[in-house]
């Protein structure tokens, strides 16, 4: 005599005037509850729809138009802007620069952040608050401020050259911002300086969630600290590592402030990023919003493809 039998007999899906979907089987009270739940989401969904999805759609339409300023007209071959981009040398240079920053800076930053978080996670470390604050403070500085400070520090008569000359590491001042390679190095150093602390916080949070019994088990099995780090700690931090990789990639591809304020595009556009080029095309000189919109769509596609690749790789190894 199971009590489930009467309920099972009543559970026939019917098509009634309430329509189809999950709401048709509900009582009026339950349906009202479900609609109330949807009502809570309307402000956020409406804001995101109006401020993000609608402009994105408009940008797609814009990318098929050309013209100066507000005199926009449909492009003759519809993909004219994209064809122009394929032959654009400056665009190719900015793409190279951005990918270079991504490939060099992100791995170094994340590995340093992992190592630092692991060191800071030791419960017997003294003055922990001071170390954490010191490492996180650069992340609280505005992008424009730190770009200008780094520009001053790495000037030909700036702090870095003075210090290197004082310890006799170099004979004459290095023109950091005047050569392509050193200018890119300065930008990468700036990015490392600023964003490592930010990622240390994320990894510290992930480390707090690691089960200490797994670490004890590893120690009892005779694993040294390095072996424990690679075989026990890192696999348990995989979701957070994936999150920081996606966030860092996203941020580095859209980078604008450092390129604009630190080097202003660098010696002959050799440190310019894609977003900086987009800003130049759209708002400086002769504004061409159609071409700018096409550029922004290429940035969007690159971000989306890289994020999809990273999510696939991250999930496969689970």
């Amino acid at each position, binding site marked *: 005599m199971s009590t489930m039998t009467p309920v099972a007999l009543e559970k026939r899906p019917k098509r009634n005037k309430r329509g189809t979907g999950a709401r048709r089987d509900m009582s009026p009270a339950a349906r009202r509850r479900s609609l109330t739940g949807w009502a809570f989401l309307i402000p956020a969904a409406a804001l995101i729809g109006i401020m993000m999805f609608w402009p994105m759609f408009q940008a797609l339409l814009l990318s098929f138009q050309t013209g100066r300023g507000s005199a926009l007209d449909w492009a003759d071959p519809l993909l004219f802007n994209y064809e122009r981009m394929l032959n654009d040398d400056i665009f190719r240079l900015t793409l190279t620069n951005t990918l270079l920053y991504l490939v060099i800076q992100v791995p170094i930053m994340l590995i340093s952040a992992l190592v630092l978080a692991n060191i800071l996670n030791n419960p017997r470390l003294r003055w922990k608050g001071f170390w954490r604050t010191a490492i996180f403070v650069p992340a609280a500085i505005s992008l424009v401020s730190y770009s200008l400070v780094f520009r001053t*520090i790495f000037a030909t008569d700036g702090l870095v050259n003075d210090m290197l000359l004082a310890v006799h590491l170099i004979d004459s001042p290095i023109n950091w911002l005047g050569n392509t390679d050193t200018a890119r190095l300065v930008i990468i150093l700036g990015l490392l300086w600023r964003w490592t602390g930010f990622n240390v916080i994320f990894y510290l949070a992930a480390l707090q969630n690691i089960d200490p019994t797994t670490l004890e088990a590893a120690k009892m099995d005779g694993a040294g600290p390095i072996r424990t780090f690679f075989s026990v700690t890192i696999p348990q931090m995989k979701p957070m590592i994936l999150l920081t990789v996606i966030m860092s990639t996203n941020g580095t591809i859209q980078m604008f402030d450092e390129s604009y304020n630190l080097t202003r595009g660098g010696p002959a556009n050799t440190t310019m990023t894609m977003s900086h080029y987009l800003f130049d095309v759209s708002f400086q000189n002769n504004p061409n919003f159609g071409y700018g919109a096409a550029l922004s769509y290429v940035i969007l596609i690159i971000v989306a493809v890289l994020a999809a690749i990273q999510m696939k790789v991250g999930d496969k190894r689970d």
Partner: protein
Amino acid sequence: MTDVATKLEKSPTRTTARWRGVPKYVFLSIVALLSIGPLYFMVVSATNTTQDVLASKMIPGGNLIANWQSLTEFQDVGSAMYHSVLNAVVTTVLALVVCSIAGYGFEVYHSPNKDRLMWVLMLAMMIPFAATMIPLFQACSLTRDSSTRPGPWCSPRLRRRC
């Protein structure tokens, strides 16, 4: 006999153990110095004259008042501060209200369709600002007169805060 043996075992490890943590602290000190160095230079430079900054002087000077006066003389600092504070406060308050309502709706009135909507909204966070910048600029230039700012609702921070 065993007490003496264990005591003899313990004493060398105790002195080496005291120095075992030192490389860690040295490394952390270097990292902290590199992190705070530029900021310290920035603060100290604010109190120095231009020649001192170019000479990389690391000791605070007495030029703070003069620097502040030349700053306020050439830039409208008050207006800039007001706009920054307005932006920060309004977007934070709006984000708190909108996002906590939405979070409440997603969690307490949970359903599979709401999960799908949440994934769509999370996807919106990944859209680079560059992709939406130009249409937003066009929209905001329609809704403002020549003297005021476009308004905090156009700010990307409102969207990123959620």
